[in-house]
């Protein structure tokens, strides 16, 4: 059996582990955190205002036009949904595969998932022409005959897919938190904490019965959310694949989207984790370089998958012999939006190749920069798919360009404000590493850990 590095460094006692992990909750916020939080919050408010203006004045404020009917909002929606994938993958799939290393990153990854899906979920609702009528997207008994929704429309599948995913991942995340809430409750110095965390811990007593129920439920939820990891982005990809636009109407989309989603998800996890390690040094012992390396490996792998998808798209376009399809792809690489295509290629395919080298895999600054590039690249992937396919389709007489406006920028940037605000709050209020799960794996990798 190959020798493994320790999952938890510094040979900690159980007490130390608990203290390390709850430390951020029990001390006053650092200046750094405060600074980041306030700026994130400012961005969030700015976001809300931007949305308010757009919704009250009209979609026309954004760059969407004829022929490019979908723009920033849909692009950013798919982007965030994609981000939302790593969490469930790490926590559910890796859990089922008994990957012990997941324990220390799972919690934060899930948190990221939940917040990303929240951020994403808003876009499809906001991007409609009449957001106040969005409830028509849900089937409910009514006095119009009754008039139902169109179950053939991928957009409707989206509504269900995303809402399911949001619910399940949120429940999964919360269940995982319950024992830790109890721990915090018990350590609580003042009443408010005791009451709040008490309520959150749903009267957890830590009895054997509690634990067995908990384990069972956790396993079930893991099983439940694993297919969702695949289904959500598959269905999101149907929004494009089921339509018949050259560049959209592609059978490879579902796997390609899922791979891309995991790719971008891990990119974001690495970005955040490096920051967490800087912000909360005591986590360094739990989120070790090894953890980061493993994730970087995944990034590289999925990056290659995505790269393959790009390639095969082109091949199929040429192989299909369909003039429109061919033109669509030539236009991507050589048309007026070629720059966005090449940004995508370099960020998603070329740059991750750095991770072939162990040195880079294990260097925090390198992985940080790379992960940022991955995020940028993945946003542009959606830009390429959405805008570049729409702006030149069947009839040259309709060809046009996307009319990017400053509201597009506001919406895009603002969404990060929302995400970061939630994430920073989470870091201070919830245990960022699963205490209950780390303790069992503390001895993994120690020789003779048994004495």
């Amino acid at each position, binding site marked *: 059996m190959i020798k493994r590095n320790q999952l938890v460094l510094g040979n900690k006692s159980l007490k130390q582990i608990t203290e390390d992990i709850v430390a951020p909750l029990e001390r006053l916020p650092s200046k750094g955190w405060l600074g980041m939080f306030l700026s994130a919050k400012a961005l969030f408010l700015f976001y809300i205002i931007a949305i308010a203006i757009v919704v009250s004045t*009209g979609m*026309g404020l954004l760059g969407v036009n004829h022929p490019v*009917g979908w723009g920033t909002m849909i692009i950013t929606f798919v982007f965030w949904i994609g981000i939302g994938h790593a969490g469930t993958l790490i926590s559910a799939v890796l859990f089922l595969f008994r990957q012990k290393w997941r324990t220390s990153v799972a919690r934060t990854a899930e948190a990221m998932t939940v917040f990303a899906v929240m951020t994403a979920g808003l876009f499809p609702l906001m991007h409609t*022409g009449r957001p106040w009528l969005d409830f028509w997207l849900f089937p409910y008994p009514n006095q119009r005959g009754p008039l139902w929704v169109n179950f*053939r429309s991928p*957009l409707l599948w989206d509504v269900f897919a995303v809402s399911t995913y949001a619910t399940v991942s949120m429940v999964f995340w919360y269940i995982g938190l319950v024992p830790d809430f109890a721990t915090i409750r018990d350590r609580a110095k003042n009443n408010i904490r005791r009451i709040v965390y008490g309520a959150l811990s749903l009267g957890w007593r830590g009895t054997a019965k509690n634990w067995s129920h908990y384990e069972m439920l956790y396993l079930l939820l893991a099983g439940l959310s694993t297919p969702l990891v695949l289904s959500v982005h598959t269905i999101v990809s149907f929004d494009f694949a*089921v339509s018949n636009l050259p560049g959209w109407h592609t059978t490879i989309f579902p796997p390609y989207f899922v791979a891309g989603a995991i790719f971008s998800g891990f990119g974001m996890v690495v970005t955040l984790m490096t920051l967490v390690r800087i912000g909360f040094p005591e986590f360094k012992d739990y989120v070790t370089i090894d953890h980061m390396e493993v994730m970087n490996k995944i990034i590289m792998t999925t990056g290659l998958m995505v790269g393959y998808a790009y390639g095969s798209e082109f091949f199929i376009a040429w192989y299909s012999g369909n003039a429109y399809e061919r033109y669509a792809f030539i236009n991507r690489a050589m048309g007026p939006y070629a720059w966005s295509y090449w940004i995508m290629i370099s960020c998603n395919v070329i740059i991750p190749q750095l991770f072939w080298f162990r040195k880079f895999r294990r260097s925090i600054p390198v992985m940080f920069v790379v992960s940022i590039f991955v995020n940028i690249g993945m946003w542009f992937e959606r830009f390429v798919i959405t805008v570049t396919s729409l702006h030149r389709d069947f009839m*040259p007489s309709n060809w046009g360009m996307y009319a990017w406006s400053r509201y597009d920028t506001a919406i895009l940037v603002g969404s990060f404000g929302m995400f970061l605000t939630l994430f920073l709050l989470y870091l201070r209020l919830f245990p960022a590493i699963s205490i209950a799960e780390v303790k069992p794996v503390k001895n993994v990798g120690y020789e003779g850990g048994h004495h």
Partner: protein
Amino acid sequence: MSETHNENTSAANTPASVRDTKYWMSLEQWGGDPEFQKLAETEFMSSPLREGAENEGQDGWARREFLKLMGASLAMATAGCIRRPVQKIVPYNKQPEEVTHGVSNFYTSTWSDGVETFGLLVKSREGRPTKVEGNPNHALSKGGLSARAQAHILSLYDPERLQGPKRNLQNKERTNRDTISAKWEDIDAAAVKQLKKGGVVVLTGNLTSPATRAVVSDFCQGFKAQHVVWEPLAHDEIREGQKAAFGDDVVPYYRFDEAKVIVSVDADFLGTWIAPTTFTKQFAEGRKNPKTMSKLVVFDSAYSLTGANADIRVRIKPSQQLDVLMGLAHDIVVTKAFGKYAGNSSVKAALEPFANVAGKLAISKEAWQKLVEDLIHHKGKSLVVAGGLQTKTEWAHEVQLAANFLNAALGNDGNTVDAKIPLTSAKASNKELMGLIEDLNAGKVKTVIIHKTNPIYSAANSGFASALKKAEMVFYTGDRIDETGKQADYMIPDNHSMEAWGDSESYKDVISLQQPTIRPMYDTRSVQLSLMTWAFMAETGPKRLTTPETFYDYLRNFWRDELHPKFGKGKSFEDFWEDALQSGAIGVASLDKPSSERTFKVEALSAVKPVKASGMELVLHPTSMFMDGTLSNVSWLNELPEPVTKVVWDNYASVSIKTAESMKIAQGDVLEVKVGESTLQVPALIQPGMHDDVVAIAVGYGRTAGGKVTNGVGSNAYQLVQFGKAGAVYSGAKASVTKTSLKTKLATTQTHHTMEGRKIVAEATLNEYVKDEAANNHKHKIWSIWSGHQYNGNKWGMAIDLNTCTGCSACMVACQSENNITVVGKKYVLEGREMHWIRIDRYYVGTPEDAHTVFQPVMCQHCDNAPCETVCPVLATVHSSEGLNDMVYNRCVGTRYCSNNCPYKVRRFNWFNYAKLIEKPMHLALNPEVTVRPRGVMEKCTFCTHRIKEARVKSRVENRELKDGDIKVACEQSCPTGAITFGDMNDPNSRVAKIFNEDKRAYALLEEFHAAPSVRYMTKIRNNDKGGETSSHGGGHS
């Protein structure tokens, strides 16, 4: 909760009579009512909750629980019911019998645009005109309407119209200091006092109305006044040419339908020349059947609509106009020694200098030879026309002579050219204007009455403005204080043509009657009545002018005395009048009368000498939307793309690609064009198919006081016109073009100009077509796993003949007017947000230098396998049982998925709340049959489903079957060429069904995509003698 229960019980206890007025019927009361029981049951069966009902026996819980809980919401319910917008219904006091509330009436009327007259059917709902359609009874327009004629209804509802007479208080410099409202009495008093001083001039544009012409001449007779006629689009060069050639000062009538070969030298007869709609109709007549279609050869110095429809288009510069005509003349009369002038030595001498000009032109020797032979072969059945602003050059006179000579030599005169049917209204003359300016400067003129012309704008360079200041008093009848109005002392607003009686005659003896369709909206007075009043008060002028109390009476008298004897056909006058009103037009016989050939004064030819020219030449031309600049405050026309360039909201200087390259000009760079002393700054448009030495600019733009909409749109190219003793020079002048540092954006509705080798517009040459009717129209083998929809009743379809469609864009305005389509403005057109439901795609074919043009009207194709229908999440766009693709605005949430998935991209989205922007009284022009769309809603062509419904209901009320032609959709109705056919494909005898099933030219757009559209296009046939090399595939400039 508790309180709601009390409510309920109390409802139960109170006697029914009291409860009648309650906002809801309580259950107990309903109980007895069988009708309700039925209603309830049926409603129940269709209910999503019926499971609850079916297994009620087994499991009452769900339902009872449900009822209880529903009870809870009663509080809410009751609260809600009181809220209701209270609307009032105010019936007539006395019922006017022709008005049926909710049913529109059509009144025959007429409208003239410059010298062209249209027969109108004005659609009026509860006494307000909502749309104008063509009157088939009119002998010339024959039911066709130009885009402008359709759009002129908006000028009636223009919020900026003067609402009453005004007086301009002017300072010493005779510029407007202040404007105050005036009373008609005061104006009349002042006018009469002033008029008595003599030195009166009545300056009008071309008057198409015989009665008005009579009024003016009576008035002039009474006051010893002089009548000067001027407007920028004058046809004086034709009249002078005719005079010099044949001795009669007329603009003749042309028969494009008779002509087999048509040669046009810059005469844009399909777009802007004399009577475009009439000519378009004739032209289409000559081409409907490809087998016998006429051939159109255009020598074009700007890229005109006519050039765009040419079988062979040759780009020239104005200085080559003469070469073309005389060159043809030489090769026909001298080389081929054809015609009765063959032997004539003076002719030979005159033609000699033009012996071999063909080489200098951008046309191949063979094509030129073929043209010469064609002309000879079709002697008497060919037609050579030259004219328009593009030919108003220093050598305009010679050009006309040459054209007339050709027609004479080919024996066309008397056949396709008919001087016996002159254009009676074309009296405008630049010479007269110059004369007037002279008189004004000499102080001979005391009073000027200006009507239907706006010289200070459209003769900007003539010095009229300063001359007019010399007059003591100026009356202006315009509907706003525009450029000329600013210098008038009194604004005496004329009625809008829809508010007044009148008549109109463009070509001799084709007279139509104009009846008012709405009471004058404001305190305006018809100009004729003004003149009559003044004559009456001054007790001068003939009896027939001073006796009648209104112009209506004058009109009737005029018709009784002048027209009834001539056209009455023995009917009593009353019947004659009634018939005229009924049919809208009289006097059609004369058009078909064979005319006699005239002899050409050969000595005149000797004056014709070759033109020496070098460097850039200016070409001024009108556009079919703006013409001379009247109606430019109509937003529809501003957003109507120029048929060839597709530019909206601007005019521009068109230059060739080569010139642009050599001068490093990019699209939108502002150029400074200098002609003589005058300069003009105007953005550049790089235009394929232009001569390299030509810079072409459209007139009619750059109004400064035309109204909110038009002010500042484009720049006024009239400033480049060179006025002289001989008249005005519009084109051919040497122009120096310099590139400035400024840049602007030109808004176009189409940004890509080739078909990228896709089969979008199928095109074949006549030779190919004769060989194989399905030339270049190869069908795809399509295999589908789905059997498709079943259509048991009607199945609506449309066929569009690309061979007769000239791209005139009348349908676009018709659709806009019919369907309440909004205008978005330049900024948003630039962002790709124009709203037209039907658009006319224009593609360039061939080499960029010599680009040919094809047009293709595209609207919703109402696909059987509509991609939009499957993707709408809320079923806002669904398939109807008649093959229509229904768009339900009130259900749409605006995901825009349908638009993304539409391969034709015909769907339009309401990006903002456009409806809110409709300014009163513009809302009166809205069509009550079509919902005004709110913000955030998708919209598109509906195949005028409301018209279908109207026709069906009508047929049902009259209880008969719908028959082919009952339904005329808006675009079809307005199309001057009849290129659009709409009907029922399930009726094998309908016109569409025949085209769908039998016509070999018919093809579906993007057929291989298999959206199975309900629209078929018919291959465009080009009669250009080529064998097979022209293909339907694009390439060329992009």
